[in-house]
């Protein structure tokens, strides 16, 4: 085998008392797509940040094409031909898509003046490879998934030898993901090496050549994809077998119970129109659709997080007026945001404070004082249930890995014992084991009569978890699929509107 383009040996990294990486070895061959797997908090992102010059290792060596390299900062990494798509989106919200895409180039640009016209034209070309997002838009005005696409586009502009993708598809739907895979394959064929981090086994097996597994900040193994199996990787990651990825659905003879949530005529006048849906006790309702189809906005409008123009909502058979999110919470309806960093967690506050944010009332004593013992207990209990890897519930959420931050966001929703939970991309960034755990938890809640709505861009999740799926297109409910109709093709057809069968239209009308 030729010299590895990138070789890591004995790299360790600690954050205070936490040892994120211990003596890690890793090697990347030229022109390969190398998957990196591990549970949440295993140290994947930390290693990538070290390679990209964002963090400095405490010890260990990095070799690029056999040469020892000290990567002091991101600029140095770029000079070495290393590009990283960060797990946490890091873009400048006040700048346009075009400027964000070409920011590294602008940084090294010699010419004293900008040429916006060329910049925009070039940026649009790159952007269009992934999705037709207008590049003159400010990034701050984009949905989180579109921002993710901008992040990827940005990395594609770099003239790199090593491209690192840290969970690039976590918020993407199938079509965008497929476009990305095509690009990755193309890059590989040009001899570029790619490190690909994902919790989605199917992607890894369709895209990658080799796979390396980390556990608890240590190197476990590297295998040829052809010589291993998803089960084996999972076993190496988790250290045990995962018996069943998805919990059992409602059996055919188990009729769902009384309606928990009933929505009709919900519109906001701009992004969601005439939405109707019904959720019954015991079932898990999925919502699918393409990026930007308006699923998130639909849910946010329902919960009073965006102003609505019309719509009636019943919870437990009783009509409720929701003009602010606080009304929804009071009525037992909670929403888990897809934008973890932007609206899901308080990064610089403690895990305990994050978990209790949704309902302080129940932690409050007679004098209006917060019972901090109860707060700690609650957070500790939930963190344990969700398997949050942390130093303690007093630690700031910013010190957690992406997946663990997501678990904290979920813990917050669970803390209030809601009637109905709408979860927008609930398992975004969550590892296989924890994901199965969370799915079981959701099913459990559903069985105990809690209404669960799952908005997901991950097709297998919709199909594996939900009893029924609504598909949204351009702000409207395009159709409904019940358990035995659920398939990727069916969802995509409804979502993209290619099928114009009478049947689908009929269904759509029935739902609306």
């Amino acid at each position, binding site marked *: 085998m030729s010299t590895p383009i990138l070789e890591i040996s004995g790299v360790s990294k600690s954050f205070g*008392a936490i040892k994120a990486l211990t003596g890690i070895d890793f090697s990347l061959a030229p022109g390969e797509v190398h998957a990196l797997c591990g549970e949440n908090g295993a140290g994947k992102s930390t290693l990538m940040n070290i390679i990209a010059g964002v963090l400095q290792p405490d010890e260990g060596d990095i070799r690029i094409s056999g040469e020892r390299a000290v990567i002091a900062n991101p600029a140095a990494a770029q000079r070495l031909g290393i590009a990283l798509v960060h797990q946490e989106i890091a873009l400048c919200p006040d700048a346009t898509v075009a400027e964000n895409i070409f920011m590294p180039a602008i940084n090294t640009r010699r010419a004293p003046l900008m040429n916006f016209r060329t910049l925009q034209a070039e940026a649009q070309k790159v952007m269009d490879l992934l999705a037709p997002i207008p590049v003159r838009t400010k990034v701050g005005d984009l949905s989180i998934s579109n921002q993710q696409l901008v992040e990827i586009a940005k990395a594609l502009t770099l003239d790199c030898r090593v491209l690192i993708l840290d969970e690039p598809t976590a918020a993407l739907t199938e079509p965008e993901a497929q476009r990305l895979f095509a690009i990755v394959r193309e890059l590989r064929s040009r001899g570029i090496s790619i490190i690909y981090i994902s919790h989605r086994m199917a992607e890894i097996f369709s895209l990658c050549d080799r796979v390396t597994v980390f556990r608890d900040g240590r190197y476990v193994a590297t295998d040829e994809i052809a010589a291993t199996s998803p089960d084996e990787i999972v076993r190496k990651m988790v250290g045990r077998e995962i018996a069943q990825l998805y919990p059992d659905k409602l059996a055919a003879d188990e009729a769902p119970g009384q309606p928990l949530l009933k929505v009709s005529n919900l519109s906001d006048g701009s992004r969601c129109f005439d939405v109707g849906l019904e959720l019954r006790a015991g079932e898990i309702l999925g919502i699918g659709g393409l990026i930007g189809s308006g699923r998130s906005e639909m849910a946010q409008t329902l919960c009073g*997080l965006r102003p609505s123009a019309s719509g009636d909502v019943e919870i437990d058979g009783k009509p409720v007026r929701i003009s*602010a*999110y*606080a009304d*929804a*919470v*009071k009525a037992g309806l*909670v*929403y888990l*945001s897809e934008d973890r960093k*932007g*609206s*899901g*967690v*308080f*990064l*610089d*506050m403690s895990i305990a*404070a994050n978990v209790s*944010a*949704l*309902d*302080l*009332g129940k*932690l*409050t004593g007679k004098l*209006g*004082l*917060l019972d*901090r*013992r109860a707060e*700690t207990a609650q957070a*500790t209990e939930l*963190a*344990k249930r969700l398997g949050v890897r*942390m*130093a*303690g*519930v*007093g630690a700031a959420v910013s010190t957690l890995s992406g997946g663990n931050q997501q678990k904290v966001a979920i813990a*917050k929703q669970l803390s209030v014992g809601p009637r109905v939970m709408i979860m927008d991309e609930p398992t975004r960034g969550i590892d296989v084991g924890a994901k199965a755990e969370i799915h079981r938890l959701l099913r459990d809640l559903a069985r105990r009569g809690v209404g669960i709505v799952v908005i997901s861009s991950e097709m297998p999740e919709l199909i594996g978890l939900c009893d029924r799926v609504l598909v949204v297109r351009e702000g409207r409910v395009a159709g409904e699929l019940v358990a035995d109709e659920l398939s990727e093709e069916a969802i995509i057809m409804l979502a993209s509107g290619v099928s114009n069968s009478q049947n689908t239209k009929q269904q759509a009308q029935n739902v609306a």
Partner: protein
Amino acid sequence: MTAQIKTEGQGARWNLARLGSMREAGLIVIILALCIAMSFASPHFLTWGNFRAMLMSFSIEGIVVVGMTILLIVGGIDLSVGSVVAFSMVVSGALFLAGLDPWTASLIGIAVSALIGAVMGFFVTVVGLNHFITSLAAMVIVRGLCLIVTKGTPLSLFTLPPAFKAIGQGSFQGVPYVIIIFVVVVAVFDFLLRRATAFRKVFYTGSNEKAAQYSGIRTKQVKFWVTVLSSTLAGFAGVIYMSRFGAATPTFGAGMELNIIAAAVIGGASLNGGSGTIFGAILGMALLSVVTSSLILLDISVYWQDMIKGCILLAAVSIDHLLHRRKA
């Protein structure tokens, strides 16, 4: 799990280690170091008279600092505090001169201050302006109101009844009431800010307003009430100043805001919201005060005072920052 162990170890009880890990530890050390140095440099420093002078000089302002700190935590700022302090004095004073008893007059003065806060809160939460520009306009407007009410001349309130003057000028067992009030206000709000549910929402809102909204917190209400609180405390301070000075000066407190904000920032409050403590802010105030009075005690030439004061300030915050960063 390490997590559990640590959590249990950190009981509610105080201990030295915990003290050392507080955000404020660095400042305390720096202030103590300055005091020790000063007590060698000047025989007058470690006297009750000097301490009384230092405490008196910042205790009423300290009440304003409390409100400002909470406002900074929510992500706001209030440039109008100096004007509001003066207006509260002026309104109470004018009402007293018009025949009202000073207690009622003071209550009205404080209520008017709260109202100013409410108007600012309206512009911030309903119109959507930022705190900086709203409170800047309020600063100018309220100062103007002071001039209008007084026609520019200080109101002499020599005739205030002794019982009322006692608040600002009297003492209990040798400890001025002003200092007692200050300590109580600081202690109460420091406690509330750390422990009360209502104030926790201030932190959520300041840390990430959107996430707070997504947690069902009515962040606009939170911002509104914190704005009102800041003005109310400024109004309260104004009334105490009136009692202490026996006068209502329309130009009083001009430029005060910078000192107040500086104290809070030195004490660890962030201008971006989400962090800060009352205790820290008061330490910030104390630091500024100790430095100023040391220079006077040491008989430093007035030409050199500002320069030295600024340098000590810069050195102190640098050291504090480095101490704190080392830990983090």
